[in-house]
């Protein structure tokens, strides 16, 4: 691991000007520093900044401080009641130890688990070493993207929380060298294109302060359905975040986003449109599932995810619908 200096921040205002790399829980950054993939010369620990770890309702908005721990948000009773898709996306991620360490802001910026990216210099990887090529394109692609890939990179965005946030139309409050701004979570991550090393639209030093989620009629009838190789403590093979607004069996509005199969959190308006205005049954839910994967381009070893994902979307829609009947 390269040498670096370590400083603790006392206020958010001080962060953008330092030129140092932000570290929160460190469960992504320190991990990748141990692998010499991340090599920051200076770390600024933001978890010592007071007042950014709260979770609260403000009107029809659920507001998460970027430094709140995954475990706190996952078990927050109001989050569970008003917007289960958010709580479930966190509870089904990582382990309790990691959820105690990791923050909601850092979670959004976690990096791919592509084994060629993580496991080092023997493999070409445009994300790790721009211009070197992509080992996954000709290699083992079981864990790689069916949606949003490019000639340069087909790495999956591995997170769960961002997928749920994209389904819920969430917004970030940012503070950067050029001041404060807001950004939809859906606009945070870039497609890989020909520069897969650039993963987000954040500027250097720009800090996520808060995550705001509008929770109106849509929220309660929601779920995060995650399919894994083992029952717990694994990244998604495929996941579906679904939220519905229903009236007497008819879908007024549907939100559907996919995880584990795309290069960024992947909202599927095509699938949402299948449900809107129609009476829901399992056949219609499956139709939405098929629409969600209509644009999928499977590689050599991940074709099974088209079928698995279609079913996962259908199951998630039915789970969410059942919740709309709860008082």
């Amino acid at each position, binding site marked *: *691991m390269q*040498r*670096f*200096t*370590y400083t*603790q921040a006392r206020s958010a205002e001080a962060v953008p000007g330092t030129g140092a790399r932000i*570290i929160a829980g*460190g*469960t992504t950054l*320190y*991990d990748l*520093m*141990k692998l010499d993939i991340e090599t920051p010369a200076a*770390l600024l*620990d933001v*978890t010592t900044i007071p007042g950014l770890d709260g979770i609260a309702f403000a009107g029809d908005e659920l507001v998460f401080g970027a430094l709140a721990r995954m*475990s706190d948000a996952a078990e927050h009773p109001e989050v569970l009641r008003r917007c289960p898709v958010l709580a479930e996306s966190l509870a089904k991620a*990582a*382990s*309790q*130890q*990691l959820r*105690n*360490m990791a923050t909601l802001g850092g979670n959004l910026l976690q990096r791919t688990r592509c084994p060629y990216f993580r496991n080092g210099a023997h493999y070409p990887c445009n994300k790790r070493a721009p211009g070197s090529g992509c080992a996954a394109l000709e290699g083992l692609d079981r864990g790689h993207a069916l949606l949003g890939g490019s000639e340069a990179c087909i790495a999956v965005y591995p997170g769960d929380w961002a997928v749920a946030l994209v389904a819920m139309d969430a917004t970030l409050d940012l503070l950067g060298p050029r001041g404060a701004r807001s950004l939809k979570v859906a606009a945070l991550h870039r497609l890989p294109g020909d520069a897969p090393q650039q993963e987000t639209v954040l500027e250097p030093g720009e800090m996520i302060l808060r995550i705001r989620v509008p929770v109106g009629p849509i929220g309660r009838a929601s779920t995060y359905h995650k399919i894994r190789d083992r*029952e*717990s*403590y694994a990244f998604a093979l495929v996941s579906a975040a679904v939220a519905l607004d229903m009236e007497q069996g008819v879908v007024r509005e549907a939100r559907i986003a996919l995880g584990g199969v795309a290069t960024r959190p992947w909202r599927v308006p095509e699938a949402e449109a299948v449900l809107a205005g129609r009476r829901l049954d399992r056949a219609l839910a499956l139709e939405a599932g098929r629409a969600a994967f209509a644009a999928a381009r499977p590689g050599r070893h991940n074709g099974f995810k088209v079928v698995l994902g279609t079913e996962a979307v259908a199951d998630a829609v039915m789970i969410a619908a059942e919740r709309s009947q709860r008082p």
Partner: protein
Amino acid sequence: MDDDPAGVPPAISPCLTRREAGLGAALVAGLAPAAAQAAQATPGATLRLVLRVNGKAVDTMVDPRTSLLDLLREQLHLTGAKKGCDHGQCGACTVHLDGRRVASCLTLAAKAQDRRVLTIEGLAPPGGALHPMQQAFIDHDALQCGYCTPGQVMAAVSCVREGHVTDAAQIREYMSGNICRCGAYTGIVAAIQDAATRMREG
């Protein structure tokens, strides 16, 4: 809380790491150098760290790259927490930081500044009975090689305190961060159910 057991000696002296101990003859007598000397012996140790480990004050110098796990094992010689993967994937390194379970391998030691760390060594008061969870692991044969056990026990104590022990399925879910290559899971779940009752009884 029992992160800070009463009646323990006031300080842990940072000792030389095994690597350092292999480096020079001056170290033959160097069983417990003061923090400043340790800093000289390790050129990268630029960060002063003050924390409490198992109720004892620790004041030491670390290289900023040091993980909490390496601080515990290599500098403080608390080798209960184990290094399985060093990447947050196995749970063998689980300790409590300010009362919450964490993976110490992915925790920068620097993050423990002014905080309380509890390791398996500090779980039961010295000289007394084992913690109910430790005893339950023995009673239920919840281990074979034992490598994962300190991490399992520390995670299990948290699992009970968090209230995640309503049934076997919930225990399995909230213990999934601790891998046991010997496959002692059946015994582990039974031990936690048993210890949960005993911990509640006090």
